[in-house]
């Protein structure tokens, strides 16, 4: 009977592995124990042996590609079975959630999960950019929007079933004429940062480093810093500044300026990749993670 060969979990907590080489060609037969494929983990390249005698029907993962543990990598046939069994098998597999998960994993964009506010903004962006169906607008509201140059896709309707009515146009006129904070955020977000995916080695280093931080006892050294000039500057600024300038604000400003000089340092560790930000983004980034900065400032 035809069956699926799945990516084995070769390491205890490995979630994915690279299929580095197929050792059996499509259509070739194999015997129990014969290595079918080479799979690369963070540590080693391992041969995956066959569990039964059979024929390799079809590759589902090409050489050099990464696959999640547990997802099918090949369709195997029993000896003498017809190849049409593969299609039947795959048709059954498509409807299962496992396959859907694999698609999702490959497509999902790299978002630093530590930064919740950033995530929500990009989510908003998706909603706005999604194709909108027919917008229901009352005739007078449509006429007014045209005359006032108001973009109806940005207006939220308050009439029956969300119909945009005259009242909504007038309230939109007030908001659209002002620079909207959220629009600016979205604008910044649109500049996609340079993304450098982590190599497997870098990932292993990161995981080990986290483990050592968590499991090994640490000791800390502190040193006093003479910051009289810095504090004087702050005092001078506050003499004429309308809003109070804090130490944190000044550190932020300094760090942002330093990032402009050394752009390579202006990056974020994501789960899958390093994200290099454009200069203007670092301000926003620091505002979002200001709690971390405050701790450093103390």
């Amino acid at each position, binding site marked *: 009977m035809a069956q699926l060969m799945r990516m084995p979990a070769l390491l205890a907590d490995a979630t994915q592995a690279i299929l580095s080489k197929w050792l059996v060609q499509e259509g070739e037969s194999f015997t129990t124990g014969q290595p079918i494929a080479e799979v690369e983990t963070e540590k080693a390249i391992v041969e995956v042996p066959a569990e039964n005698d059979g024929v390799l029907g079809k590759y589902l993962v090409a050489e050099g590609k990464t696959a999640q543990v547990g997802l099918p990598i090949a369709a195997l046939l029993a000896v003498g079975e017809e190849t049409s069994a593969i299609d039947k098998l795959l048709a059954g597999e498509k409807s299962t959630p496992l396959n859907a998960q694999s698609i999702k994993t490959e497509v999902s964009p790299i978002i630093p999960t530590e930064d919740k506010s950033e995530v929500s903004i990009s989510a908003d962006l998706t909603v706005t950019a999604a194709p909108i169906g027919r917008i229901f607008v*009352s*005739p*007078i*509201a*449509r*006429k007014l929007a045209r005359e006032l140059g108001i973009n109806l896709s940005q207006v939220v*309707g*308050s*009439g*029956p079933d969300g*119909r945009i*009515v*005259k*009242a*909504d146009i007038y*309230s939109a006129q007030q908001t659209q004429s002002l620079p909207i904070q959220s629009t600016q955020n979205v604008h910044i977000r649109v500049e996609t940062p340079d993304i450098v995916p982590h190599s497997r080695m870098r990932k292993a280093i990161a995981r080990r480093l986290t483990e050592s931080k968590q499991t090994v006892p640490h000791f800390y050294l502190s040193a006093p810093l003479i910051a009289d000039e810095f504090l004087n500057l702050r005092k001078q600024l506050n003499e004429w500044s309308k809003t109070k300038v804090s130490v944190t604000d000044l550190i932020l400003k300094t760090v942002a300026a330093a990032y402009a000089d050394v752009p390579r340092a202006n990056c974020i560790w994501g789960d899958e990749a390093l994200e290099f930000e454009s200069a203007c983004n670092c301000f926003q980034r620091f505002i979002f993670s200001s709690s971390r900065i405050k701790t450093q400032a103390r």
Partner: protein
Amino acid sequence: MDPAGVFAMQPGWRIIAPSSAAEYIGLMNTALTLNDPVLVLEHVDLYQEQEEVPSHCDYYLPLGRARLAQEGNEATVISYLSMVRKTEKAIEELGMNVDLIDLRWLDRASIDWETIGLSIKKTNNVIIVEQGARGTGYGAWLSDEIQRRFFDYLDQPVQRVTGKEASPSISKVLESAAIAGVADVVEGLRDLRTNKGGK
């Protein structure tokens, strides 16, 4: 039943629908000076009303001119005959600020599009109040004509207050169901206000 809708279907005569005794005198005087046939609608409910009329009765209300009974910005409320007074009560109950148009002249040739149009362009929300059933109702042709003439000025469909789906036979219950009262007008005005959205 309210015959205005049925009578207004037929061209060739003018139709007047006075909402009070004083209106009746002025409209009747004008009708008598015309060479056209004029259909006068009298509502039996108005026979019971006691009201002041001007001391001398030789005044004429102009042909094809509606009366703006109240002025406001929230909506254009159109009515005629006995429903004008009921509509006034409903408006008062809700404390709304509307244009209330008493049509006076109902036929296609004499209806006052100037007054109706000015009001709709100002308020963008229209409701027609009549007493009888929806099917034979006067508001059927009027709302049709309004959306043709003023489509770009409407903020919601032309709303209608009418009697409910019942036959006004000898049954008191059926009769009161078939004719629209103040409560129906209040309900209609509330819906109109909801449809305006905002807030």
